[in-house]
């Protein structure tokens, strides 16, 4: 009888609740607050937050082999299924017109990856991280959620939670991070530089682009294929205009389904032991460094390019290489209007913005090639 009572009481989760669990709950509540009250990336932070919350209940078996969250994580994220599916949806939503109209902007998307490598070295300098972990911290500078998750699932799964929460949080903070740095590196005159109307690429060009991009990128960096191939097939669906049902499902239903599974899966990796340590603080500090250097890289290369070309670009659009699409482009547009109301930088800024997504995926593929 006594034994039965002991067993029952022992089976109560509340008896096994640790301070670590409760701390993680509080973090989950912060994510809920940010998502619900502050509107910070709710599509990701809400499921991630709940994944954190639910994973930190004792005795649930959710994270054990065969458990529900284990299944989301193991079959969706660990085997690299979901991030590429998100890229399928993103490709079906992304307009490469501004890139095709002004291909120089591809280089601005490359320059913004400077943030990746600045944070990579910064992380190594702290002495807290090894090369694999530093690469995952670096990729935060790419300002791309699925790519960060893709890379950390590959190289440092124990940091995936911290890396993705940092990535999504800083993406939402782009209106605060980009302007001071862009203003510090440019003069008012440079920011007021007008950019005229963009030429509209033909339908043929927009259909050729995803095929051409796949050939170039995947031949040069094969390990970027999971992300790039899905990105480009989604884009081809959309631009061909002959598979509207597929395009529609890719950008809507499928995207929403995998977002739920991704959020819960990622959040569930954030247990007390994996999250509550000095490494996590390092991730968040280096994340800001990453975004700052990404902004600087884009702006500085734009200024450098202007020395060599007749078709000058407003250096502000370099900052849109920070590929938080389309937030960074919007921020750049507003900075441009502030300096010169006659300037409409939004579509021009979309060029580097989407080029940055490609740049980050290539950077991730390059890390995998070099490290594994």
């Amino acid at each position, binding site marked *: 009888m006594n034994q039965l009572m002991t067993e029952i009481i022992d089976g109560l989760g509340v008896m096994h609740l640790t301070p670590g669990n409760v701390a993680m709950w509080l973090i989950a509540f912060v994510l809920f607050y940010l998502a619900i009250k502050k509107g910070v990336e709710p599509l990701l932070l809400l499921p991630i937050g709940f994944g954190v919350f639910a994973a930190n209940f004792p005795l649930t078996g959710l994270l054990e082999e065969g458990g529900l969250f284990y299944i989301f994580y193991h079959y969706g994220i660990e085997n690299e299924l979901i991030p590429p599916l998100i890229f399928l949806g993103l490709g079906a939503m992304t307009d490469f017109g501004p890139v095709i109209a002004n291909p120089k902007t591809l280089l601005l998307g490359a320059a913004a990856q400077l943030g990746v490598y600045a944070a990579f070295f910064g992380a190594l300098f702290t002495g807290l991280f090894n090369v694999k972990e530093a690469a995952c911290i670096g990729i935060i500078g790419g300002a791309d959620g699925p790519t960060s998750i893709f890379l950390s699932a590959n190289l440092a799964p124990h940091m995936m939670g911290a890396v993705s929460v940092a990535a999504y949080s800083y993406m939402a903070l782009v209106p605060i991070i980009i302007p001071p740095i862009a203003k510090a590196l440019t003069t008012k005159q440079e920011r007021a530089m007008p950019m005229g109307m963009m030429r509209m690429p033909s339908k043929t060009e927009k259909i050729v682009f995803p095929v051409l991009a796949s050939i170039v990128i995947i031949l040069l960096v094969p390990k970027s294929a999971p992300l790039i191939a899905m990105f480009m097939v989604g884009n081809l669906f959309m631009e061909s205009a002959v598979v509207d049902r597929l395009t529609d499902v890719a950008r809507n239903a499928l995207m929403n389904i995998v977002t739920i599974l991704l959020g819960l899966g990622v959040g569930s990796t954030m247990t007390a032991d994996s999250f509550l340590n000095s490494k996590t603080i390092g991730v968040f500090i280096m994340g800001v460094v990453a975004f700052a250097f990404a902004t600087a890289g884009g702006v500085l290369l734009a200024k450098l390019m202007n020395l060599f070309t007749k078709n000058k670009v407003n250096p502000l659009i370099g900052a849109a290489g920070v590929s938080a699409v389309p937030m960074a482009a*919007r921020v750049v547009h507003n900075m441009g209007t502030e300096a010169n109301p006659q300037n409409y930088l939004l579509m021009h800024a979309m060029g580097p913005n989407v080029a940055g997504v490609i740049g980050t995926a290539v950077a991730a593929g390059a890390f995998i090639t070099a490290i594994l």
Partner: protein
Amino acid sequence: MTQVNAPMVGKVLSVDVKVGDQVKKNDVLVTLEAMKMQIKVYAPADGEVAEVNCNAGDVVSTDTVVVALK
């Protein structure tokens, strides 16, 4: 006559002037919505509004002359 084209493809949210208004450079003529943000179209020079060629709800492109000034 100065023709003011829409700076990019978007939907007209509001027309902020009417025919006969005197505007100065950088006054708001029209507000568009593109990429989920509000884009204000500013007058390129001083003048009087001669024509207003769009209404709230229209989808405009860079070929569309939204307002003409004289």
